[in-house]
């Protein structure tokens, strides 16, 4: 079975982490191929000619691109592979889950990048926005154990990889996420108790070092 499923991966990518988590939740075996993003493989360029980015899930030789689309695909192809459907069955709840996963893409990723990647006024503005965004997510979580309700679900998968950015965000932005969003931090700890999550996420400090290398590369240009 493993030779049917290949993930073109990059250890530090929050988008690739989403796919790893989804595959682990479903207990699906696959081959992970780490890409060198400064020297992209011909396989990656062939499988994702439009964006040339990871993650790419190759299933029986056919590529699926864009992390949330991949997670949805996994959920649809292997619905029986777990007691857990990542997406809710009710159309309204499903739409809500997709809305908040899209929110992570539109808000958390761009503002987060500027908090660890920028300086001065740009960084300050991004920090303010990031805190607002995290609070907005905390509001959506409410008193539920997961964004998916009682069960870990699609929005949880979409957001939890950004937990790996927390040390970098706090260090660069000089603020405390637990002070600003205690409920959200409690949720991250709950997610990290799941093996699918803890095995798919790299260590925060290692991610911080990687992001600082990236930052230095851009500043050097």
């Amino acid at each position, binding site marked *: 079975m493993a030779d049917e499923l290949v993930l073109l991966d990059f250890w530090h990518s929050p988008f690739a982490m989403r796919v790893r988590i989804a595959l682990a939740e479903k207990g699906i075996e696959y081959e992970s191929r780490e890409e060198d993003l400064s020297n992209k493989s011909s396989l990656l360029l062939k499988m994702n000619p*439009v964006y040339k980015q990871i993650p790419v899930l190759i*299933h029986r030789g*056919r590529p*699926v*691109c*864009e992390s949330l*689309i*991949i997670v*949805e*695909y996994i959920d*649809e*192809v292997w619905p029986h592979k777990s007691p857990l459907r990542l997406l809710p069955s009710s*159309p*309204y709840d*499903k*739409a*809500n889950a*997709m*809305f908040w996963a*899209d*929110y992570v893409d539109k808000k958390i990723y761009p503002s987060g990048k500027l908090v660890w990647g920028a300086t001065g006024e740009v960084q300050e503005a991004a920090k303010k926005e990031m805190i607002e965004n995290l609070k*907005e997510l905390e509001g959506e979580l409410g008193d539920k154990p997961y964004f998916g309700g009682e069960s870990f679900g699609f929005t949880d998968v979409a957001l939890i990889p950004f937990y790996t950015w927390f040390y970098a965000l706090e260090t660069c932005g000089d603020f405390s996420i637990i002070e600003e969003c205690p409920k959200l931090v409690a949720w991250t700890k709950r997610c990290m108790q799941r093996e699918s999550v803890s095995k798919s996420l790299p260590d925060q400090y290692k991610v911080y070092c990687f992001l600082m290398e990236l930052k230095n590369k851009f500043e050097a240009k």
Partner: protein
Amino acid sequence: MEGGVVLLDFWPSMFGMRVRIALAEKEIKYEYIEQDLRNKSDLLLQMNPVHKKIPVLVHNGKPICESLVQVQYIDEVWKNQAPLLPADPYKRATARFWADFVDKKMYDSGSRVWKTKGEEQEAAKKEFIGNLKLLEGELGDNLYFGGDGFGYVDVALVPFYCWFYAYEQCGNFSIEAECPKLIAWAKRCMQKESVAKSLADPEKVYGFLLQLKKAYGIE
């Protein structure tokens, strides 16, 4: 507000048009409420507190936001008529990918065509046409992006067709000359009542764009 379907929309919005088309394809009756985006209504702010944007679909009093999420919702709730997404998971993933491509690329590259001038505009035109050619490649010799039948990607993309005239006027170029197959596809879609009724008049869109340019201080 209880029961029924309401659409909070703005007449030139390509994103709103997607939802109008999907509702028309499924023959769903709904109340259309035009929004003034310079003076947002309490209803809009209540129904979309996160982004404060249109379109907002309200079904049985509950809001759904983001146009592609709305189209998927409509497709699922009213699944017995005019299916927009295919049944096969791989084909669904492919359809979602290309609709997402339209979201990521078309609006921004189109906007840069009318917002810029000189070299910047030439670069914007090149990028815009490049994106359309990629879409043309994906269409291939099919009648629609959905294959033989009108589908999800067609819904996602065709609203931009009524903005093409405005882009062409601002950028002084012909989209048909560059992408004849795509224009043929768009005209084919326009023969469908759901599309013809949902898209704004290109001349009116151009008039609206000229007003926008004035407001932005762009000549």
